[in-house]
């Protein structure tokens, strides 16, 4: 009893400390959640058990921060998130019934949703967008540290129709910048990736005349320098001259990233910009599952000039009905923590992600209430 009370006190203190540090960071995505967080903290203390999950490696850093933060409030809960699985492995293990939730860079396909029903019952599974980031266009070009690109130019570069940096299209995007005649080397992912999926989706929507290949998680254009992982792309871009590639913004380190044209303005990456983009441009995808929050992005809506044009959404997927009610309690508590203000701030600080728009976070909380 004594130990328990001590645990609760410790949890509250820890939560308070975390909230304070988070407040010091940035004032993004403000919602009314300090009462929510503190009441939740009291709840978490009574939980115990193990959450088994895995999937998307994009979420890995954020999941690590979340499980550490959650552990501070729910000392008897262990969260094991296996990032080595990748999105595909996460979904496969989830539909095989071995995960409490899966992390995935794409929401379940119709096929996968059907498979999920075998595990979750006819209620199926819900996709909850818990992690936001942006796809950054990184480049390394001697003498140039700022670059502006339109979707059309971007598509031409990555389909290798534009071969040198002093091409007329690039000059038009960058008035007043002296561009050298260096050959362009496009750097892409050699492994299948949600980042590739998001980026090809963007090009497919915004430059359909140039980008004619379908959306894919595997880079579809031959002739690029294909590298393993976001870090492989970043390292190779850094090592070369005249290189350009794409990567999750949280992984680009000190490389310069291009500003991307949206409407008639060029927008640089910012966490707020991504939050804003997701708030304005997503439309719910039809999945037929009540409470599902799969989102399709309509990039054409991003014209305001303060929304980053290539946002990236990653989901946590869980059953609407768990086989084990105790496990459902654990998972909903954890995801609830993840989408809480505090959780989002921790991820923004530790993993460089963008905070969820408050309306979307509220919807996720609504859905979590229905999970049992």
């Amino acid at each position, binding site marked *: 009893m004594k130990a328990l009370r001590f645990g609760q006190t410790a949890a509250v203190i820890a939560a308070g400390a975390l909230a304070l540090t988070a407040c010091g960071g940035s004032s993004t995505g403000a919602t009314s959640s300090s009462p929510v967080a503190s009441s939740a903290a009291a709840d978490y203390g009574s939980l115990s058990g193990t959450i088994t999950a895995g999937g998307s*490696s994009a979420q890995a850093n954020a999941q690590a921060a979340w499980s550490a933060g959650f552990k501070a409030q729910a000392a008897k809960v262990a969260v094991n998130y296996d990032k*080595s*699985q*990748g*999105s*595909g*492995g996460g*979904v*496969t293990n989830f539909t095989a019934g071995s995960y409490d939730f899966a992390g995935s860079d794409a929401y379940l*396909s119709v*096929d*996968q949703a059907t498979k999920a029903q075998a595990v979750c019952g006819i209620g199926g599974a819900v996709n909850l967008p818990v992690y936001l980031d942006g796809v950054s266009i990184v480049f390394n070009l001697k003498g140039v540290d700022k670059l502006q690109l339109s979707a059309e130019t971007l598509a031409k570069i990555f389909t290798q129709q534009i071969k040198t940096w002093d091409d007329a299209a690039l000059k038009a995007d960058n008035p007043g910048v002296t561009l050298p005649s260096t*050959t362009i*080397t496009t*750097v892409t992912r*050699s*492994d*299948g*990736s*949600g980042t590739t999926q998001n980026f090809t989706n963007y090009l497919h929507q915004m430059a359909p005349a140039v980008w004619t290949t*379908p959306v*894919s*998680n*595997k880079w*579809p254009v*031959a*002739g*690029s*320098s*294909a*590298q*393993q992982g976001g870090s*492989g792309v970043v*390292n*190779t871009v850094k*090592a*070369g*001259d*005249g*290189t350009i590639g794409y990567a999750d913004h949280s992984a680009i380190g000190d490389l310069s990233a291009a500003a991307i044209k949206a409407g008639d303005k060029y927008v640089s990456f910012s966490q707020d910009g991504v939050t804003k983009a997701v708030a304005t441009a997503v439309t719910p995808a039809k999945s037929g599952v009540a409470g599902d929050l799969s989102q399709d992005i309509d990039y054409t809506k991003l014209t305001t000039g303060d929304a980053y044009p290539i946002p990236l959404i990653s989901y946590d997927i869980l059953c609407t009905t768990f086989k084990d009610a105790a496990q459902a309690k654990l998972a909903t508590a954890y995801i609830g923590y993840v989408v809480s203000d505090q959780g989002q701030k921790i991820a923004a600080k530790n993993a460089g992600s963008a905070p969820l728009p408050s309306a979307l976070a509220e919807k996720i909380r609504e859905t979590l209430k229905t999970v049992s």
Partner: protein
Amino acid sequence: MKRKRDVSTSSAVVPARRVTARARPADRVFKFLSTSAAVSIMVILAGVALFLIIRALPAIGANWTTNPDLKTGVTGGFSGFWSYVGPLAFGTVWASVLALLMATPVAIGIALFISHYSPRKMANFLGYIIDLLAAVPSVVYGLWGIMVMRPFLLPLQEWLNAYLGWIPFFSGSVTSTGSSILTGAVVLAVMVLPIITSISREIFLQTPKLHEEAALALGSTRWEMIRLAVFPYGRSGVVSAILLGLGRALGETMAVAMIISPAIVVSFRLITEGENPQTIASNIALNFPIATGLQRDALIGTGLVLFVISLAVNMVARLIVNAKPRRKKVRDAGNPRGSDPGRGDGVSAADAEDDEMLSPLAAHRQERLGDDGYDGADGADGDVAAARTAVSAGFGAGLDKRAEGDQP
């Protein structure tokens, strides 16, 4: 294998073996343990093969152009399993062959230096260093390849493209980051170097001292001695060492995945960025995490193909080592040097015995590195057996022990 020979030629040994064969409990237990160990390896191998086949079959049989899983993502754009795995199998073999082309001459050079040129202390040290190379994890080689070898080899590749671009191998648009199959093959070559070197060194050390000294006595230079005595004797062993190195190169994953910028194509160009054929192992490593459903089965199917290729390589290596004609060659090679040096100097009675038998004295020959003179008087077959063991053991540390165990 050698035991049998002993039985057939020397009657003195037979009763002794019968006595030990009369089963005591400890013997039975040990026999059971070793037998089950031997059986388990077969079961494991069969299990792996079975797993690969069962998982691969649905993907091999599926229609790749209409299947919702296979027509998108990592397997998208291929008309069927064979058109997917074909370029991958080519890339696997191509990268490995390139690596071997570079590694083999160097490995044989090092092995010869250790076995015939260097002072003994240095030989030990060098051997140790070479074995250490084999212990470096491949992810470290991968990082080394990215950080060091890519920029280091970049000027060479640009030069090759500029001046030798008319040779098809060096044509195409030259790499600007160094992420080409040439860089990958160089790193791969370093990785297979220790295997080829270690085995070749053991083989070269097996060369009968008498052969060598006979060659020298006839006025050969040291190089001629190596050409006349060491190479003919070690040929099959070296070939199988190369094939074992090939086996290692075929299965290498991380370093290749990290260094080479891959594409699923059949291309002989060495220094491009976008036309480097992908290998099976690294393709699986790169794409398995994101693959779903049948895509995973398709990747496992490519693993099955790799399994078959590796198995074939190892079987060929075995065949070459076990090939009978070799024995004759050794004699032929020995003869021109003079009056059959292998036995002319007969130090012991063992010489008189059948070639088939390994003389007990052969055991001493194993230690000849430490001896000044030779006690060795042995037929070619003893050495063949020894060479086989050396190859089987991979790294021939077991040689001396084996020889000691054979002493009556």
